[in-house]
């Protein structure tokens, strides 16, 4: 026996394939993409007989034609990767439909074993199946089980081994195509001249007659005379069409479906009764005219509450872990300096901060992915699409666009990364891309601090109204934009028909939910964190360099020396003079920092005493300065050190400001002023906004750093106050323009990367970054300059803009799409893709 056996798992959507996959492989899974497409390729390993078996989970496909990437991937894998055995998972309660794929797999002459999954559902419906009869009719081994409960693993492994040890059948499975048979034979005869083509000849002949684009492309590559073959096929297609009045494609598909129906009948001892199932009864409520939308809102609200609100609370517990990680790393970096930290230290800390900012979201992501997996597994998602499709379709979106938008923050607070990931479920290329492109316009958690800051500082009277404005206006901007994009840039993309199975409701298993949530979090870490780490270094350079000139540095150093002189004079002659001399002062400052770190979070009096004792033992002199109590000399020393520390803080703040002003980012901010002045942004705002590219939270941090200085470096003043003081000529109108720009801000790095991962093409990522920038500056300028010219104040401008956005949404919803509906005999409803 060979060292490793390659096996594949194939099945239609909703056959419970992933539960069978998990049942066979356990937790040892590897997720990647099939080459060239964004279809996920999941593989896992398990022991089969005495050898190791690699199991590839093929995407769910209804049939093996060339219409969807899932179908093409399945076909190509079966033809070209030669799996030793193909496990065809079918839903035991819906044999008639699921056997259609079985028939096609057998036509491909794959070494198939059939696994009847969901036997419990069939039993509940009152169905009785004859597994032996099915095996006899199909001529392949058949096993059965309940994947969700892990039942049937041994039986399935046994039939897999049996199938592998069987010699190839002399008489392969055949579908009787009746009047099409002579034509099939004619095409087969010509194909036979080409020798071994790498695909079953009969299958290829049928597919060619059906006009399958993939089969055409395939013979174009491997057959020596494709022109003659093409002419023969066209001639035969026409002859058949004239004789029967039907296209070979429709006829052949029908023949296979009839066969599947006969097979299902032969294997069914007792059919399901006509009585209403639990799914029917649940749907009566969930899809109800009035109740349906109410339940939908309730579900979304709970989802939001659990993942975003509780997830955010959870980060309170995980944050100390991340802070601990940072401190741990900081311990190995060069120690801090008196005025400036060594570059390695500041880079290391910056790096850790950037990574931690993302890792901090993991609890939220985990809960979010868990909840989404729950909704997916129960079968609620297609219902959601059913209820909302009509509404979203007007804007070129899809019923399934709801969930991504909610995850990204349709009201206030979400995250675009899971939003973009959830777009995967949208089965239509065009609506999926339209959704992905408007996701960054939603209000993610990171945009909120800036809103809160600006509303607090400039709309204190109408704070809640202003928050409502910015939370809802984003949707009224996103919908018209989606309509615009789908009518222009996305107009030529494939649009799939909206035909969706509404699967029976299931109770998901905890294990499946956890597996899926962990899988997605792992994908996030794998794909995003590495890139963000690399970009963080670039942003660091932009923020830190070229840096402060040597002359200025000398001036700062001189001021520091003066402060040092005062301290030295204060402690001269005291017993602390030697301790604080030379590098002693720096050591003391580090000692003080270490003490503060050690005492953080220590509330217990005993533990605090222990920390004190440790530091006292370590350096009694330093500890005396830290805690002078009644010691007069120590008190003087402490006052001197405090005065020095304050002076040092002032100088470092000024240096930081100068470094930012002269940094590449500051230079860029100034360079952009001529453009951004129409939106009311000065260089400081520009620098803040530019730094938000790394992560939107940085906008507030950078502006905070700048404004604190403007307000005299007073740490106690709130950021709102310092911002008002720092921007004396800033009006609510400035704030409005800034909020709108932030609402339309390009996606953060993590989201951009996820857009590239999900679309498989960098060009969509570039578009997703560029168009919001242009749009943002246009909208902000129009509002700012327009309101100035009209003499509107901030609040009036705000509600006028709201009215305009709502009007645009209504108008965009009413504009008919260029291709209303689908044309009858729609050969072009889904343009066939040229080559697989």
């Amino acid at each position, binding site marked *: 026996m060979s060292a490793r056996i390659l096996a594949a798992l194939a099945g239609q959507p909703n056959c419970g394939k992933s539960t069978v996959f998990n049942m066979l492989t356990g937790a040892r899974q590897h997720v990647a993409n099939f080459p060239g497409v964004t279809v996920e390729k999941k593989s896992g390993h398990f022991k089969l007989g005495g050898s190791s078996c690699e199991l590839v989970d093929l995407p769910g496909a209804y049939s093996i034609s060339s*219409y969807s990437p899932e179908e093409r991937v399945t076909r190509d894998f079966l033809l070209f990767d030669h799996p030793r055995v193909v496990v065809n998972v079918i839903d035991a309660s819906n044999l008639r*439909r699921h056997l259609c794929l079985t028939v096609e797999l057998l036509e491909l002459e794959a070494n198939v074993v059939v696994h009847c999954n969901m036997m419990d559902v069939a039993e509940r419906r009152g169905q009785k199946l004859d597994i032996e009869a099915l095996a006899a009719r199909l001529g392949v081994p058949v096993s059965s089980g309940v994947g969700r409960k892990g039942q049937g693993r041994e039986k399935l492994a046994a039939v897999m081994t049996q199938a592998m040890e069987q010699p190839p059948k002399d008489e392969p499975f055949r579908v009787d195509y009746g009047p099409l048979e002579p034509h099939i034979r004619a095409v087969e005869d010509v194909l036979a001249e080409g020798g071994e083509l790498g695909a079953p000849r009969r299958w290829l002949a049928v597919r060619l007659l059906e006009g399958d684009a993939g089969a055409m492309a395939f013979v174009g590559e491997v057959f020596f005379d494709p022109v003659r073959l093409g002419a023969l096929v066209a001639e035969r297609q026409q002859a058949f069409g004239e004789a029967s009045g039907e296209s070979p494609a429709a006829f052949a598909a029908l023949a296979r479906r009839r066969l599947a129906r006969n097979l299902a009948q032969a294997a069914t001892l007792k059919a399901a009764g006509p009585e209403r199932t639990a799914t029917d009864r649940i749907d009566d409520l969930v899809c109800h005219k009035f109740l349906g*939308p109410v339940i939908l809102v309730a579900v979304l609200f709970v989802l939001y509450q659990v993942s975003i609100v509780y997830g955010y609370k959870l980060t309170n517990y995980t944050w100390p872990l991340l802070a601990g990680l940072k401190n741990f790393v900081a311990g190995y970096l060069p120690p801090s300096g008196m005025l400036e930290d060594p570059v390695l230290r500041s880079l290391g800390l910056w790096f850790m901060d950037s990574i931690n900012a993302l890792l901090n979201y993991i609890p939220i992501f985990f809960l979010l992915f868990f909840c989404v997996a729950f909704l997916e597994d129960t079968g609620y998602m297609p219902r959601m699409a059913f209820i909302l499709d009509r509404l979203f379709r007007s804007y070129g979106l899809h019923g399934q666009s709801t969930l991504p938008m909610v995850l990204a923050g349709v009201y206030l607070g979400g995250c675009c990364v899971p939003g973009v990931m959830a777009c995967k479920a949208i089965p239509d290329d065009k609506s999926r891309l339209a959704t992905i492109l408007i996701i960054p316009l939603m209000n993610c958690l990171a945009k909120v601090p800036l809103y809160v800051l600006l509303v607090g500082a400039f709309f204190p009277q109408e704070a809640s109204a202003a928050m409502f404005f910015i939370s809802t206006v984003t949707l009224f901007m996103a919908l018209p934009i989606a309509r615009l994009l789908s009518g222009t840039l996305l107009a030529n993309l494939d649009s799939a028909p909206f035909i969706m199975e509404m699967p029976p409701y299931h109770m998901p298993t905890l294990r499946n939910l956890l597996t899926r949530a962990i899988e997605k979090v792992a994908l996030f870490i794998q794909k995003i964190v590495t890139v963000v780490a690399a970009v963080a270094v670039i942003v660091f350079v932009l923020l830190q360099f070229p840096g402060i000139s040597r002359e200025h540095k000398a001036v700062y150093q001189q001021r520091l020396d003066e402060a040092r002189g005062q301290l030295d004079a204060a402690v001269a002659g005291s017993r602390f003079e030697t301790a604080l001399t030379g590098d002693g002062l720096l050591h003391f400052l580090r000692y003080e920092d270490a003490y503060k770190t050690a005492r953080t979070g220590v509330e217990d009096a005993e533990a605090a005493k222990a920390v004190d004792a440790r530091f006292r033992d370590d350096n009694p002199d330093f500890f005396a300065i830290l805690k002078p109590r009644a010691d007069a000399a120590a008190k003087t020393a402490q006052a001197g050190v405090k005065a020095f520390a304050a002076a040092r803080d002032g100088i470092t703040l000024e240096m930081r400001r100068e470094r930012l002003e002269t940094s590449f980012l500051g230079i860029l901010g100034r360079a952009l002023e001529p453009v951004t002045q129409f939106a009311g942004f000065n260089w400081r705002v520009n620098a803040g906004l530019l730094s938000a590219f790394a992560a939107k939270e940085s906008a507030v941090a950078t502006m905070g750093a700048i404004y604190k200085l403007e307000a005299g470096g007073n740490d106690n003043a709130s950021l709102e106050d310092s911002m008002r003081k720092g921007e004396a000529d800033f009006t609510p109108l400035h704030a409005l323009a800034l909020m709108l720009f932030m609402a339309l801000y390009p996606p953060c790095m993590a989201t951009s990367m996820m857009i590239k991962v999900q679309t498989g093409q960098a060009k969509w990522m570039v578009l997703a970054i560029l168009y919001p920038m242009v749009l943002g500056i246009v909208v902000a300028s129009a509002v700012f300059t327009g309101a100035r010219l009209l003499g509107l104040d901030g609040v009036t401008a705000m509600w006028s803009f709201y009215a305009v956005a709502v009007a645009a949404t209504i108008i965009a919803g009413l504009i008919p799409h260029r291709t209303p509906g689908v044309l009858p005999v729609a050969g072009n409803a889904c343009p066939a893709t040229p080559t697989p």
Partner: protein
Amino acid sequence: MDRREDDNRTHLGAIAPGGQCTVARVGCDGCLGQRLGDLGLVPGETVTVVRNAPLRDPIEIKVSGFLVSLRRCEASLVEVTAK
């Protein structure tokens, strides 16, 4: 109903919720025809229209014991005989 058989010939989009019909012909091929067939809309099959979505479109149908939802414009391509 005592109308002639031909008068019962209509399309799936025209069947009211609760109504039953038999698929006569699927008036499109290509991807759409394939999908409709994949989900059980095959000539001779009995279809029950279960309900409209809250905004009247799409519709939910039951075919061979399973629920499928599709938009009205796609449903209108499925020729059926009303029961």
